[in-house]
């Protein structure tokens, strides 16, 4: 029973970071209908910036905020200079473009910081051996509680942004009907750049949490997380922010349970397969995801 609770909790904590990246994917997808394959790598690059700021003497919390600003700008610049010109060509051009961006950033971070990997980054939360509470006899470390809490707070903030602000209304308008959005006077370009910027900041935060979890920033920091996040976004519904977070938590729990209880042949190395299986099953049986909206168009 303790093993179950502990696996559940660790799953939720890991799932929270998947959920954050999935949120970033959803914010971009709702705006432009694109899946940003470079989302994870953009976060990794931002996390390296956080490490660099911190290494130069900036306090960690401030460095993280600066890293999120970097991610914000990176997202906006990427949309304006790379995505927008490609989107005038075709959806496929954007698809290939984001993969190229993934490879480019990965090559850059590997080249600059790859060997030896000594970019140590502390967790944002107290992380000494005795920084934990016991719940039902299981160990809940502060950093895991913190990760989960940050994700829930960010989700709530995004909900307010989407549902209660003028910018959020404009974002939902652009996502729902770009042509009409232009006709009511929404500067659609600025809204799309804004969506990518928000996604960039979210990706930066997620990468910092993941890096803090494993103690250092590495060029492959977000590769696995991005795969789980994609599964989470597809599972929750690519246009549903709440679904993305719930999808992330479900994937995290599923992963943890699989690693803890599944037969040996699934084990640690095969658990990524759980995510891929989830993507496959969802796309096959419910392409709009658990909480996504099926596109209905009157003809």
């Amino acid at each position, binding site marked *: 029973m303790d093993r179950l609770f502990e696996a559940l909790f660790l799953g939720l904590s890991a799932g929270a970071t998947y959920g954050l990246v999935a949120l970033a994917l959803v914010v971009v997808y709702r705006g432009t209908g694109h899946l940003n394959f470079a989302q994870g790598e953009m976060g990794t690059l931002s996390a390296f910036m956080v490490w660099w700021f911190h290494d130069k003497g900036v306090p960690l919390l401030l460095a993280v905020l600066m890293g999120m600003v970097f991610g914000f700008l990176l997202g906006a610049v990427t949309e304006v200079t790379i995505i927008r010109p490609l989107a005038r060509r075709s959806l496929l051009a954007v698809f290939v473009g984001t993969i190229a961006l993934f490879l480019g950033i990965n090559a850059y971070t590997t080249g600059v910081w790859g060997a030896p990997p000594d970019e140590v980054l502390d967790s944002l939360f107290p992380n000494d051996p005795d920084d934990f509470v016991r719940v039902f006899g299981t160990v809940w470390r502060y950093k895991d509680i913190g990760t989960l809490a940050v994700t829930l707070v960010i989700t709530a903030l995004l909900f307010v942004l989407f549902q209660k602000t003028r910018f959020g*209304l*404009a974002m*939902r*308008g652009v996502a729902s009907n770009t042509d*009409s959005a232009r*006709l*009511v*006077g929404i500067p659609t370009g600025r809204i799309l750049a804004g969506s990518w910027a928000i996604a960039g900041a979210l990706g930066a935060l997620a990468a910092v949490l993941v890096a803090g979890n494993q103690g250092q920033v590495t060029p492959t920091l977000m590769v696995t997380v991005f795969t789980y996040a994609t599964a989470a976004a597809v599972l929750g519904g690519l246009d549903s922010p709440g679904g993305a977070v719930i999808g992330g938590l479900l994937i995290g729990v599923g992963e943890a349970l699989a690693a803890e209880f599944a037969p040996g042949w699934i084990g640690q190395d095969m658990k990524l397969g759980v995510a891929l299986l989830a993507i496959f099953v969802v796309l096959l049986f419910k392409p709009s995801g658990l909480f996504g909206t099926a596109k209905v*168009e*009157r003809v």
Partner: protein
Amino acid sequence: MSLLEVNGLRAGYGPVNVLHELDLAVDDGEIVVVLGANGAGKTTTMRAISGVIPRSGNVTFAGRSIINSSADAVVRAGIAQVPQGRGTFPELNVEDNLRIGAYTRRDGGAATTADVERWFTTFPRLAERRDQRAGSLSGGEQQMLAIARAVMSRPKLLLCDEPSQGLAPIIVQEMFTIIESLSKEEGIAVLLVEQNANLAMEIAQRVYLLETGTIVASGDAETIAADDSIRKAYLGY
């Protein structure tokens, strides 16, 4: 000087030019209809005025040139469009559809809320469905919503692109009545493009006939409606 003056307007899609030297004008508070068959360039005319497609020539609105204005600047200048095929935001609820119509206004949330309530009073059928997604409304309700959404920006000129399209005759009648009363009661000028010549000419003061991207005839609605040769040649009945 007219409210809207269009001179030598050219516009199209990519290398294909649809409008050739199009001229028209709309006065304050006036209802003007542009009649034309499929492919004559009616929708292109509307989209060129709104600035959502590339165009050249001269377009002045309230004395200012808007030929180089972006689509959002055109809305801020006071032109709203009800696009062809409703153009509502299907995933947004009815109330948000109205609120988003006020996006360019700078007079604050309270004024927007007051206007939302006002149009809900004018269109009680929309009020009953204020929390429903626009995509779940009937065609007539969506058209009503699209019109209300457009006037939320407090325009001086309303562009209506075939409001009768795909609606039952009795609903079409209702839409034209709504448009006519908006013009009369709010003083909003209306530029309407239509295939449904009879009904449109009943509410319009002036008529333009559009054929392959250029105006081939124009005049008072009554004169045009009574002119057999024009009717036969361009309206096909």
